[in-house]
């Protein structure tokens, strides 16, 4: 997963599938990384992004791309499953939260200071919480081999 940033080919374009959100078919982990990077590059601060998908889908890879797009300088971006939350500095600060160890559903995640701030917050296993602050939900599903079907809404 360490040569991801070397690739320069752009993401596939968004294809509409039905009325709700946009769905992408991605070929590999690099594409997930690049999609995250694009979201990071266009972030203005205050975004709360929820990530949904099974173990090994690529949620952390998306956040690694997001961090690259935010110009995070104190990486690498590592999984916060056990420590719950990691903070990073960049063009905008990034708060990386992981709810994997929690029992669903949570009415609060008890980290409210990162839901309304000037940085970007990414929440893995977002389907375990009922908080309203998430402006974007990224759902990553397996589509055979290394392919992923990603829905953004």
């Amino acid at each position, binding site marked *: 997963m360490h040569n991801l940033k070397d690739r320069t080919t752009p993401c596939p374009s968004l294809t509409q599938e039905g009325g709700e959100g946009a769905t992408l078919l991605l070929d590999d982990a690099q594409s997930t990384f690049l999609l995250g990077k694009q979201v990071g590059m266009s972030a203005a601060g205050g975004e709360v992004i929820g990530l949904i998908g099974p173990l*090994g889908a690529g949620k*952390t890879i998306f956040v690694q791309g997001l961090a690259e797009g935010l110009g995070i300088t104190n990486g690498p971006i590592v999984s916060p*499953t056990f420590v719950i939350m990691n*903070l990073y500095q960049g063009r905008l600060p990034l708060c990386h939260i992981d709810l994997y160890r929690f*029992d669903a559903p949570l009415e609060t*995640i008890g980290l409210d200071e990162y839901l309304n701030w000037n940085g970007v917050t990414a929440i893995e296993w977002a389907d375990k919480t009922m908080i309203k602050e998430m402006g974007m939900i990224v759902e990553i599903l397996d589509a055979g081999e290394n392919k992923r079907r990603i829905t953004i809404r």
Partner: protein
Amino acid sequence: MDRCILGIETSCDETAVAVINASRVTNLLSSQIDLHKPYGGIVPELACRRHIEAIGPLLNELLRRAGCALTQLDAVAVTVGPGLIGALLVGVSFAKSLSYALHIPLLAIHHLEGHISSVFLEQEDISFPAIALVVSGGHTNLYKMPKRGEYYLLGKTLDDAAGEALDKGARLLGYEYPGGPVIDRLAKQGNPIYPFTIPHRAGGLNFSFSGVKTALRQMLQQENIKKDLPSFHADIAASYQKAIIESLVLKSLLALRQNNANSMILVGGVAANSLLRRRMQEEGERAGFSVYMPSPHYCTDNAAMIAMAGLSHLERGVFAPLDISPHPALELASFS
């Protein structure tokens, strides 16, 4: 001179206190005295509230068991980071109050320095320079220690920690959290017959465990895998665990050789894994290094290790001011 040091650790799930009094260690966790309620996971806000509820009664019980009065304490050591800020604040505020009221020094301890110090609870004479591997659910870090209390980061995981990879492997096989001990137990009954490559072998002193997790997931999805065999879980656990443990051992040996170190220090929750303990001992000693690791009950989060790190700070005269703040993302190298 024999000192009496109180250690406090509240960086994540566990409220922990310990006293080291004339080399005698008394160690107490909130989960041991039935304050722990069944919430499954840990909500940060709830963790914070639970630390507040637990810490007072826990200290009283600790002093009773240690046969030690509050006024006998010579210093108070506390974890100041990294960790959940709300949880850290409880321990730090409590420690500051004791320091102020009892007129004793406050000692600020990095959580990972605490883990490294756990080895000194049972070992006094470790020959430096040493390499320390801190490996748990949240961390996989290799440090060079030219001497006690000095740390240089040599490598770390680029994605998942080794303990997380073991835990999620167990989940993929259908077992509940915490999965690390499950993999350890299953693997003892199995044979490593499934092919997993050693993760990030060419990656120098850095680690990567995200790929081996995905490899396991893809292997479980294959149709020709014989999931019905009674030994399937044991064999696949043995294979998966072996790949992760060999990566830890291989990179530790590389760090030892590259830095002309004398000793290997293995600490953190995954240091309780029986295969890692055995393999690190075997390979380290075969290559001529002394290998040290704490007893398994000192591998997971505890406050005895914080008190031990505090003792070293006290002896070196490293005191913290009363206005010190806990920090959720503290680096050990820059902190020491």
